[in-house]
Every structure is written in structure tokens, then in C-alpha cells.
């Protein structure tokens, strides 16, 4: 009793986590540690200023300043302090930084302290100390696992209107600022013989062994300090302290050019065939990255062999009110004391079921911290010096509002006893970090002697596991496993390595006796501290038959918090096993999936952000078009001029109408480089194209171009273009802009897989030639000024659908095609791309006397609709040659891709859709693409749907809006008036079914 009195003062002093802060002193900073001599740093938490040292984490610095309260839990908003000193932390989550750099849910236990660090508590209001939502804790009995599945159902409308908005507001943890992240991120690729995951004693020994053998080695650790537990323990290696040995090892590794040491680097996932994802935090430990330098880097590591040396994670014991700030894992308390020279409080008690817990007591005592009790669940617990031991005892409850004040024990004798303490160091044993072994097909196996799961089953290809991650917990065992593991891995690669002499190190067993939770007490005992999952919840899940591990997890949310259950899954599993009367291994484990710890969107995106999200392809005339003030549009990856506004034009339609009319009345020029171009050569080139196109090409004369339609094997039309024959064994094929890659891929498939003995060679030349359409009645006159005189391009010498190789501008090689998309007398002329910019300038100059205009994709679209040419909107992947009105083009006399299946009955019904044109009955009505077609009378419904309009535009030539599209039996309904309905935008107009060839249906102009 007197104990309590004596300590009441110190407890009160600690109770409000910020008292120390106000005094501005690091009340809980001890001597020694690895940060001694570290540069002093200043930082703020919830606006209060604190001091810490270089080498601190936010958590260690706050603890040093007497701050235990760092967060609130998800559901009940219970006060929480750090449970751990590592990345498995469930409780101490804060919002780090502010503005575009605000970073929610950051674990204070791994946030490296830097000068000027700004952190704020999250998921609490109005303040961390006084959180309104803590009211939930009062109603916890109603808010048990899955309660929400059983209520909020009446009245139905209330879910979205009332219940859900409240739940959504209350839910979530941290918040984002909604400002764009100002930092840069990067990606990279690394290759190695051996990837060592984790730089504790095991990993370091493995890296040394492999490095000395000359192998290419990468060793990565999530911590900013190499050494793993060696930094947290007092025992040495050989005649050095653990930390000194680490320094020595690190120095040797640094001296090896074949070894890459990567601190602050988390291996996030084990992917197929030895590929690992790694996130390196290059600038999270500074205020802001240098300009241009990345905040984080995603590395894709290609490894021939990998060794998982990720150590182990300590697990807690569940007991009533085991979640108060100050209740921590014993190994973490030890780490804070030995590495960071910090104790969570001046009085500490220890609760353990294994010898490891005793180390915490011993180390704290050695540092002058008062250890008020060592509570060991084992009746045969070893003796302790300098602290009272309660063997066979249990902690049955705790006290303290915002921080631990005392714990209540049930002694072996059966009597209870209150022990004052501002911190309780709990150890329930250690779980090997098997996570990465499970990312593919590994399924851990139970090892009784350490009461934990160890890696088993099919590990990722070429991965081995060593040290604590494999259940070998002693330092000596770790060193040995690291060395031997490296030797074994390298020998598989034919690299000889030697384990060599290993230094002396502690080799003590941990003697754990499984103890999962204290059965006594009616209150709540926490398993998952972040999601507020208690022992009671697991029992309820069992009662309601959510008994498989996955059901347990999904029903209670156990292990689904930001820590992915690293400290909680095991306890839940053990309790479920007990309730089901099974052994733990029979219950199984939940799947561990990537990432090992959460990774930012930013780093996964790397440099592919904003305008650089995907590459941009520019046409040869881009620079010139910019000078003309062209408006550009994305067409796939291409940027194309959409129209060329002239001074005084206030609406895009004015520009487009002008471009169309001037082209049809005189001449216009358009950059059509984006069309795919494939060069096809070989003795069988013609026969090959016969297979590729639905129509015949074998007999196409040299010097001629032919329109071609390509089908998929299922008989659907998927691309069209032209093929120009330059020689018996040489064609140049064009594809649509969108399908250039696909057509090339399909041609290679046919060439290599279907007709492997055909003599045909393919290569893309899309980018090699700058190609311009010159269209309009004056097209020839214009070109005659540019084409070198020795080439006769008169109608007789160079008729419609002719092609040839010529020269322009005094000797520049070029290709001329007399083809027309606009329906006018038109040519396409191609020059090597580097001359494209000069060529468009030359063409415009030559066209001046005719008032030549450049036209963009809009005018191009208008003119092709006026001519009824099918394009992307018509070749939409569901339309056949028959639908397009090209049924007769599909040759039945030869084999070609798609002709057999195009004959299926479903694709040849008499009411099939046919491509036709539409004119508004009232010329003022706009025809809209996407409108559906209905008969003149009768209901408007899906059942009476007659088809749809695919493309529409205002035709300045016809002076009204026009459209083309697919109509049932369309070809036989010319002249019929039907309705184009657009309920989406509340529009309905009458249209007349007409031929899709609005302009020059006989095609006299293009032959002229």
C-alpha cells in the first residue's frame, strides 16, 4: 500500500502525458544508449515544442519527454501509447508534416526525428487528451464485433441518409490535406546474386560471408540503423559490444564494391521468380528533399538467391485493460532503454511468460530505473536481482486514465496485489517474421519448443530463411545461420564461399511457456489494439460460427489494421484454437500479403505523374502547328492539332467550318503521320496480305493503292487502311492511328505462328515518314509546285489510287499516294520525318495563292462523316463487314483471318444493323452521336431500339447537322423518317434515313 502512496506523486506527474513537455526537459532520458552525443533536435507534437536527439524516433523522443499518450484507438477512441519500438506498431499513429506533405497514420516508432519535425495526433476531437468520441467506450458493450450487421436496417432509407454518413465521419484514422504531394519519387532496377533481407546479426553475417566470396550482394533493412536487435541488447559479440560489432561489419561491407548496403529500405513483397519490391526512404528523415531529389525510391530487385533474415516480433499477453499508455512489449522497453536511452517511466513492472522478459528487468535495473515487479506466469521462473519476482502470477487489471498508474496482480497464492508502475513491459514470446515466405505459397508450420509459427511449405523460388525469422532466436545461432545460409545459397550459383570463424555470442534459450491471455476478469482484454478487437469479440465470433481464421478476421476485423495484425493475430488464433478445442496449427494462419508494411502511392507511381504519366507522341508538324496557335487533342498517345483558330474566330465551329469549306472549295493540308505504317516485303508479301485482309490483294498492280478491311478471327471488322504496292515484293500498309501496334502484333503472329514458311518480312515505319494529306480541287496544282518537275502527277500519269516514289523541293526523297479520306481530289505525300517541319511550311507557302488552309482532326472528322467513311466509332469491335455495308468485300474465294466465322447465322440475320446516314428533318436540329434510333411512332424503349448514331457533325457543305450510324435493315430504309432519341440529355429529334455518302456519292471529285 505504502508503495502506491510513495509513487502517487511520480504517477500524477506522469499522468498527463505532457507534463514533462511543459517542463521542457527530457525527464525520462537515461544515460548511455546509441544516441549519446547525438545532435540536439527540436520538434513539435500537437503544437507543443520538444527536444530530442539525432538518432531518436518520434516515439523515443516523446517518451524521453514524458509523453506516453500518442494516439487514440479506431473504434472506442481509447487513449493509446506506443506498444512497440518498430514497424509493427498498432497504436502510436500520427499525422506527420502538413500541407501537401501531410502524412496520415505515420508510426511514431519508426518516424526518424529531424530538426523541425511537425507531428499531430489524429482521430481525436477536440484534443488527444479530451476526445469527444471516447463516448464510444462507454457503449462498447453495444458495439461488439459485427454489431453493425444486425442493425441500422430500418427504415431502409436511413442507411445512406443518416447512419452511414455518421459512421463514415467517425471512421478512418488520419486525414489528407487534399493538396498535391509536392515531392518527387523515383524507381530503379537492381540485380544481385544474393539479396539479404534484414541487417541484424543473421543478415550482416550472411552479407559478410557472401561479400567476402565476391558475390553481388544487396543487404536491405527497414531501420535507419543496421544491427537489428543488436542495437537493443546489452550482450556483446566476441569482445565487442553488439553495436561496435555492427559498426565493424558495416565498415567492412562498405569497403566491398560488390556489396550494396541499403538502410531505410523495406522489402515490401516477394514476387515471382526472385523479383522483390523494395522501398528506400531517401528523404523521410529530413525536413524536405533537395530539389529534384526523390523522397522515396521503388526498387525492383532481380535476385538469383534471397535470404530472409527479418528477425522476429514480440507478442503481447492479453489481460483486462492491457491497452493503457505505458503497457508495452518488453523487448521494446529494452530497446528504448539500450538504444535510445529512454524509459517510458521511472517505475516499470515486467510481465512475462519467458526468460526474455527478465532481460528487460535486468537492463532497466542496470540503468537505474525502478523495477517495481517482475510478474512471471511460470511457477518455476528464474530468480531476479534487484526486483521483486512474482512467479506463477498474472496481471488481472490495470489503472490509469491517460496513462498507466498501477497494475493489479493475482499471485500464485491467490491473493491480489496492486503494484504501482508507469509502464508495464509485457512479453508473451516471439513470432518469427515469416511474412515474405507467405507472399506466394508458403504456409508456416508450428514449432512447439518456441510456441510459434516458422516458415514452411513452398517458399518463394530461391528464398532461404535464417536466424530469428526461422525460429533460431539466440545470437550465436543467428550468426551461424547467416554464414551457413550464405554459403549454401552461393554454392547453388557455383560461387564458393566460406563460413569462417564465427565470434562468440550469447546462446541462451528463451524457455517460453505458452500463455496467451489472462482468463480472469469481466472487462475487456485487447488483442488488436488499433481496431479494438478484444478477447470477448473472438469468443462472440466463435459463438456465431465465424470459426475459420478468415471468418474470424473478417467478422471481428482482427489483424486488418495498419499493422496487419503483426502483434495480434497470434493471440486471436490461440484463443480460437482453445474455444474450438483444437491445436493452434489445426486452426491455421491467415494469409500474409504484400506489402510487408504500407507503401505510398507516390513511390509506386515514381516519375509517371502529371503530364509524364504516359509518353507523349508529337507529329512532325507539331512545332509549326504550335506557332499557328493550333488547339491540340490527345489521340491515344499522340497530340494532334484539332483545329487552327484564326484571329476573330470566337467559337471552334467557326474555325472548323472554315477549314472544311476552304478544303472542299480550294485546298487544305493535314498532318496524317499518326496513321500506322508497316513495311511488308518478301516473295510472299502479296499472299500474306491476302490472309490479313478480308479483300483480295494478290492482283494489286505495282504502283497502285487499295483500300483494305481487316477482320478479327471472329469475323468482326477491327481495322481498315490502305496497302500500296511499290514492287512485286514490297507493300506499305497503313493502319488506323489507334490500332497501329495491334495490327503489327497480329501480323507478326500470323507470320511466325500461322504461316511460318512464308517469305515475308515486317517492320514498322510509322515514325520514319512525315505524311501530309493535301486535299481539295487545287491539291494537284499545289503539289505540282512542290514535286520536282521530272515527276508527272497529272491525272493521266498519276490517277486515283496511284502511288510512287518521287522527289520534292529539289531532290528530297518522298512518297506520293493518291488517296482520299475527305472525298476530294487528294494526295498524301510523305518525306523523311526530319524534313516534315520544313515540308509543311513549304506546302503552306506553295498553297498561299490558293488560300490553302491547314486543317485539324475536327475538320478531318467532319469531311469523313460527309463521305460516310467508317472510323473508330464505327469500327467499335462489335460490327462486321456486313454491318459496315462492306459484306461483299469479304472474299469467299480465299482464306483470310475472320472469313469463316463471319458466316455465322447470328452475324447474318436479315434485320442486321447497317451503316447509313441521317439528316435532321428540321435542319436546325443537331444530330448527336450516341443517340438511339426508334421508329417514327410507337414507344421509346430498349425493346423497340432500332440502332444508334455513331458519329455526327455539323456539315458546313450541307448547312445542317448530319450523322452516320447503325440501323436495323438500314440499307433498305432510305427515305424513312425515324426518331433519334437521347433521353440522357432530354432530346429527341426526327431524322431521315439517307445514304452515308452525303457529299459526292459518285466519287467524281476524287477521280478528277
Amino acid at each position, binding site marked *: 500500500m505504502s508503495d502506491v502512496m510513495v509513487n502517487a506523486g511520480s504517477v500524477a506527474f506522469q499522468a498527463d502525458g505532457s507534463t514533462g513537455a511543459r517542463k521542457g526537459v527530457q525527464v525520462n532520458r537515461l544515460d548511455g544508449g546509441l544516441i549519446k552525443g547525438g545532435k540536439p533536435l527540436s520538434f513539435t507534437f500537437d503544437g507543443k515544442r520538444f527536444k530530442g536527439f539525432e538518432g531518436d524516433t518520434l516515439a523515443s523522443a516523446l517518451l524521453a519527454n514524458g509523453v506516453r499518450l500518442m494516439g487514440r484507438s479506431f473504434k472506442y477512441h481509447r487513449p493509446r501509447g506506443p506498444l512497440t519500438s518498430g514497424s509493427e506498431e498498432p497504436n502510436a499513429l500520427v499525422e506527420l508534416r502538413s500541407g501537401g506533405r501531410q502524412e*496520415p497514420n505515420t508510426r511514431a516508432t519508426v518516424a526518424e526525428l529531424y530538426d523541425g519535425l511537425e507531428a499531430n495526433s489524429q482521430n481525436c476531437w477536440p484534443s488527444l487528451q479530451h476526445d469527444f468520441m471516447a463516448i464510444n467506450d462507454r457503449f462498447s458493450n453495444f458495439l461488439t464485433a459485427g454489431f453493425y450487421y444486425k442493425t441500422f436496417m430500418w427504415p431502409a432509407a436511413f442507411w445512406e441518409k443518416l447512419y452511414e454518413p455518421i459512421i463514415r465521419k467517425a471512421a*478512418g484514422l488520419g486525414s489528407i490535406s487534399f493538396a498535391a504531394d509536392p515531392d518527387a519519387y523515383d524507381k530503379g532496377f537492381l540485380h544481385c546474386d544474393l539479396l539479404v533481407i534484414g541487417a541484424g546479426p543473421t543478415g550482416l553475417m550472411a552479407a559478410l560471408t557472401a561479400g567476402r566470396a565476391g558475390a553481388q550482394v544487396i543487404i536491405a533493412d527497414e531501420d535507419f540503423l543496421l544491427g537489428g536487435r543488436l542495437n537493443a541488447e546489452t550482450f556483446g559479440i566476441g569482445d565487442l559490444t553488439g553495436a561496435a560489432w555492427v559498426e565493424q561489419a558495416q565498415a567492412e561491407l562498405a569497403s566491398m564494391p560488390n556489396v550494396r548496403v541499403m538502410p531505410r529500405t523495406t522489402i515490401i513483397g516477394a514476387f515471382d521468380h526472385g523479383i522483390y519490391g523494395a522501398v528506400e526512404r531517401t528523404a523521410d528523415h529530413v525536413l524536405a528533399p533537395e530539389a529534384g531529389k526523390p523522397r522515396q525510391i521503388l526498387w525492383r530487385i532481380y535476385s538469383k538467391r534471397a535470404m530472409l533474415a527479418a528477425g522476429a516480433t514480440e507478442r503481447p499477453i492479453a489481460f483486462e485493460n492491457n491497452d493503457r499508455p505505458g503497457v508495452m512489449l518488453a523487448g521494446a522497453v529494452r530497446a528504448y532503454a539500450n538504444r535510445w536511452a529512454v524509459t517510458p517511466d521511472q517505475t516499470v513492472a515486467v510481465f512475462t511468460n519467458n526468460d526474455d522478459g527478465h532481460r528487460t528487468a535486468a537492463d532497466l535495473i542496470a540503468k537505474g530505473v525502478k523495477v517495481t515487479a517482475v510478474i512471471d506466469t511460470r511457477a518455476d521462473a528464474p530468480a531476479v536481482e534487484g526486483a521483486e519476482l512474482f512467479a506463477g502470477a498474472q496481471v488481472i487489471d490495470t489503472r490509469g486514465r491517460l496513462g498507466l498508474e498501477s497494475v493489479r496482480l493475482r499471485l500464485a497464492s491467490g491473493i491480489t496485489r496492486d503494484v504501482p508502475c508507469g509502464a508495464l513491459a509485457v512479453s508473451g514470446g516471439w513470432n518469427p517474421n515469416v511474412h515474405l515466405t507467405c507472399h506466394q505459397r508458403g504456409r508456416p508450420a508450428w514449432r512447439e519448443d518456441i510456441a510459434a509459427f516458422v516458415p514452411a511449405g513452398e517458399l518463394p523460388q530461391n528464398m532461404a530463411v535464417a536466424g530469428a525469422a526461422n525460429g533460431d532466436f539466440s545470437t550465436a545461432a543467428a550468426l551461424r545461420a547467416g554464414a551457413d545460409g550464405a554459403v549454401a545459397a552461393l554454392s547453388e550459383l557455383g560461387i564458393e564461399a566460406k563460413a569462417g570463424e564465427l565470434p562468440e555470442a550469447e546462446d541462451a534459450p528463451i524457455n517460453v511457456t505458452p500463455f496467451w491471455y489472462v482468463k480472469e476478469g469481466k472487462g475487456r482484454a485487447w488483442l488488436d489494439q488499433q481496431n479494438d478487437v478484444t478477447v470477448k469479440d473472438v469468443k462472440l465470433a466463435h459463438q456465431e460460427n465465424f470459426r475459420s481464421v478468415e471468418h474470424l478476421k473478417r467478422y471481428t476485423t482482427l489483424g486488418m489494421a495498419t499493422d496487419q495484425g503483426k502483434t495480434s493475430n497470434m493471440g486471436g488464433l490461440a484463443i480460437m484454437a482453445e474455444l474450438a478445442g483444437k491445436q493452434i496449427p489445426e486452426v491455421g494462419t491467415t494469409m500474409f500479403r504484400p506489402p510487408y508494411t*504500407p507503401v505510398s502511392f*507516390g513511390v509506386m507511381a515514381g516519375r509517371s*505523374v502529371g503530364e509524364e504519366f504516359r509518353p507523349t507522341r508529337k507529329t512532325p508538324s507539331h512545332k509549326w502547328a504550335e506557332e499557328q496557335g493550333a488547339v491540340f487533342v490527345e489521340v491515344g498517345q499522340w497530340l494532334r492539332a484539332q483545329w487552327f483558330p484564326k484571329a476573330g474566330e470566337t467559337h471552334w465551329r467557326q474555325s472548323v467550318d472554315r477549314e472544311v469549306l476552304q478544303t472542299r472549295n480550294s485546298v487544305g493540308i493535314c498532318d496524317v503521320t499518326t496513321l500506322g505504317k508497316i513495311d511488308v516485303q518478301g516473295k510472299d508479301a502479296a499472299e500474306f496480305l491476302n490472309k490479313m485482309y478480308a479483300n483480295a490483294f494478290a492482283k494489286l498492280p505495282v504502283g497502285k493503292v487499295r483500300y483494305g478491311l481487316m477482320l478479327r478471327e471472329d469475323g468482326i471488322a477491327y481495322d481498315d487502311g490502305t496497302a500500296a504496292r511499290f514492287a512485286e515484293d514490297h507493300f506499305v500498309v497503313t493502319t488506323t492511328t489507334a490500332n497501329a501496334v495491334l495490327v503489327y502484333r497480329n501480323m507478326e503472329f500470323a507470320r511466325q505462328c500461322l504461316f511460318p514458311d512464308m517469305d515475308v518480312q515486317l517492320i514498322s515505319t510509322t515514325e520514319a515518314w512525315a505524311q501530309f494529306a493535301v486535299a481539295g480541287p487545287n491539291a494537284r496544282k499545289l503539289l505540282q509546285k512542290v514535286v520536282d518537275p521530272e515527276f508527272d502527277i497529272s491525272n493521266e500519269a498519276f490517277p486515283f489510287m496511284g502511288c510512287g516514289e518521287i522527289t520534292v523541293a529539289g531532290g528530297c526523297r518522298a512518297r506520293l499516294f493518291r488517296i482520299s479520306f475527305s472525298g476530294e481530289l487528294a494526295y498524301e505525300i510523305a518525306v523523311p520525318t526530319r524534313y516534315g517541319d520544313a515540308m509543311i511550311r513549304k506546302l503552306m507557302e506553295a498553297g498561299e495563292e490558293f488560300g490553302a488552309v491547314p486543317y485539324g482532326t475536327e475538320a478531318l472528322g467532319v469531311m469523313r462523316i460527309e463521305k460516310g467513311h467508317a472510323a473508330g466509332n464505327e469500327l467499335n469491335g462489335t460490327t462486321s463487314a456486313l454491318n459496315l455495308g462492306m459484306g461483299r468485300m469479304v472474299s469467299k474465294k480465299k482464306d483470310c483471318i475472320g472469313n469463316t466465322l463471319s458466316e455465322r447465322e*447470328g452475324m447474318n440475320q436479315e434485320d442486321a444493323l447497317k451503316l447509313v446516314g441521317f439528316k435532321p428533318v428540321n435542319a436546325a436540329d443537331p444530330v448527336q452521336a450516341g443517340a438511339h434510333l426508334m421508329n417514327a411512332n410507337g414507344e421509346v424503349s430498349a425493346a423497340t*431500339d432500332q440502332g444508334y448514331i455513331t458519329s455526327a457533325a455539323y456539315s458546313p457543305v450541307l448547312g445542317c447537322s448530319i450523322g452516320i450510324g447503325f440501323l436495323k435493315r438500314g440499307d433498305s430504309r432510305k427515305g424513312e423518317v425515324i426518331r433519334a432519341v437521347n433521353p440522357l*440529355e432530354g432530346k429527341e429529334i426526327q431524322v431521315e434515313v439517307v445514304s452515308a455518302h452525303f457529299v459526292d456519292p459518285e466519287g467524281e471529285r476524287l477521280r478528277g
Partner: protein
Amino acid sequence: MRYSGLKVIKEALTGHKGWRPTWRDPEPKKSYDVVIIGGGGHGLATAYYLAKNHGITNVAVIEKGWIGGGNVGRNTTIIRSNYLLDGNEPFYELSLKLWEGLEQDFNYNAMVSQRGILNLVHTDAQRDAARRRGNAMILNGSDAELLDTDGVRAMYPFLNFNNARFPIKGGLLHRRGGTVRHDAVAWGYARGADLRGVDIIQNCEVTGFKIENGKCLGVETTKGFIGANKVASCVAGSSSRVMEKAGMRLPIESHVLQAFVSEGLKPVLDGVITFGAGHFYCSQSDKGGLVFGGDLDMYNSYAQRGNLPVVEDVMEGGMALIPALGRVRMLRSWGGIMDMSMDGSPFIDKTHVDGLYFNGGWCYGGFKATPASGWCYAHLLATDTPHKVATAYRLDRFRRGCMIDEKGQGAQPNLH
């Protein structure tokens, strides 16, 4: 036992002793009228509607593992009725209508939440296609609105309107679309079916069919032979594996689709956004996690996991659309096995074997289809005629040339 707020309060005050198993774990009987293979969403829904709509309760649902462990528990929880083609839209509209009354119907709160789904549009051609689709939706009794850039900005001002590689030109908004707590759907149907007498048999794998002169008599399982008048396969993801035991080859490939969830965040996204140009879609769960996904991994796979390139591709899309996500962390990824069919549309049909029925080929549209799939499959099983909104989902449609190809990609499953 009926669930209600009152019941929750009563149990809270009496130590939660009254809660009973959500479903029983019976031993299988010798035979049933109908044996449904697969305890996923569709299988459990089928059992539920067989009992509720058709009074057929002598039914077993046999599940290889634990119920709801397949795609119903591995999806991004989106529900919608925004299809284009006649063969599909009436079916998905029925499904959405069923979702709208589901919780009151099976007395389980699956958190059906119609906060809207927005398909972004980036080009004029996409707007034309969106208009055609939106009109098809309305003509089929669904809802749709066509938004311009400002309309999208008003809903989600934090999307990238400044330096986007593919500028947002508008979007097709489907207000009745939304999300559902996926696991609860399986549990709710299981509970509803169980209460009506259906046997749910977990950890029982089908090892073969007993087929004699063209008639299916039952299934061989790891718990012995179970006789049945009708056997209904409903194992999307494993369809080929199961039907192969009946000697069938299917127009289906199995592909892996990854999905992701971020750490919990205070409200960011109210509805669902799909960013076609960047292969990214995203919503936010009631718990606060951003639930997002993108493309298939593209190769055939039965492994419920994917690889890094697609993870990067998806999150690149996320950053391209919402630059404010830079510091948000992805917490967990998982993979589901998709029955990718040859035209991207499903099958609910009899097979050439008398008494053997098939439901599958859901691609990644299976979750939203759950109620209608169960409804129509139950109708087919009970009446031996296809339900009127599912008449197109026949296995012989490719032979007939009657594909239902929403995306127009042809016979390449991984592109649907």
C-alpha cells in the same frame, strides 16, 4: 432469430449470450433435390432464392473451403447497372433493384450504399460512347447523367484538372451505383438460406460427378457421394476445373485480378470513380480505407496473387487522377481468380448433361451480379427455363454468332 437494433441492445444488456450461429454446420444428407457446388455469393444466393422464391429447401451448398472465401470476399465491392448491351443491362438492372431491397429482405445489414459511380470521359469519342451507354441504361430503366468537366469538378475538385496527361472532359454518372460490404453478402445469404432449411456444408470438395447415360445423379465429394436430382455448378474462378470433371471444355480462361486497400483515412471519396484512361478505379469503404484496382495481370493464373508491374500500373493511375494521394499508403493487396469469358459476359445455362447446370464466366463483374445471378439461376433450376433477363447467357452463343461483347474486344478474355 431476427436481427434488429432492439435485439442488439437486449443482448448487450444480457451478456450477448443469445446470439446463435449465423449458419449451422450440418453433415451432408444422402441426397438433395438440388446440390449447389460453391459456397460463394452466387451459390448462396441461388440457394436462398430457391428456398424463398420457389419453396425448394431440400438443398445443399457444398463449399471446398469456408463460405465467402472466393471472389465475393476478394472484390472491390462495387455494384452498378450501367451496361450497354441488350443481353446484359436488363439483368444488371434486376440485380441493382434486388440490392436495393436486399437487407430488409434477408435481415442482414450488408451496408448497401448507393453513393454513385462516375465513369470519367477523356475524349469526344468516349463521350459519344458514354452517351450511347447512358441512353441504353435509361431505356432499360436504369439511371444515368452525362457530366461535363465542371460537373465532375463540382463533385471531386481534387482530381487532376491542372496538368493531367489525359484531361478530364466529363463523365457518365450512375447515381444508384455504389458499394456493398462484400463479406456480409455471403453471410446474409448464408443465414437466410440456413434459416429456410438449406444445408451449408463447408470444407467439402467435389471430386467428381456421377453421370449415367447422360444424366447427372450427384457428386462425389471428400465427404462421400451426395445424390441430387439437379447439380448446379457455381464456382466462378474454378469453373474449368470443376466442369472438366464432367468432360466439358468451356469458353473461359482463369485470370488473376489484383485489388488493393489503403490505410484508413477520414472521408476522401464519397462515391466510386473509374479512370479508364489510366486503368484505375477507386472507392472508400465505410471503415475509411480506399479500395482500388485496375487491370488484370493478363496471364492465365489460378494463384490468388499478382505481380509488381500491375501494382505499379494501378497506383500510377491513382496518382495521375488524384495527386493528393502521394502520401497515402497502400496497406494490403490481394488477388482473385476471374472466370474470364470469351466475350466478357457470363453464362447461366443447362449443360449437355441432363440435370447438370452451369453458372460462371462472370469476369470481374460477378459481385454486382450476385442477387440477379442467384435469382435467375434459381429460376432456371426450378423451372428449367431461363429467366427472361438471362436468356442471352447461353453456352452455345459463340457457335451461333451471338456474342455479348460490351468492350468489343473479341475472343480475348484478358481484354474484357
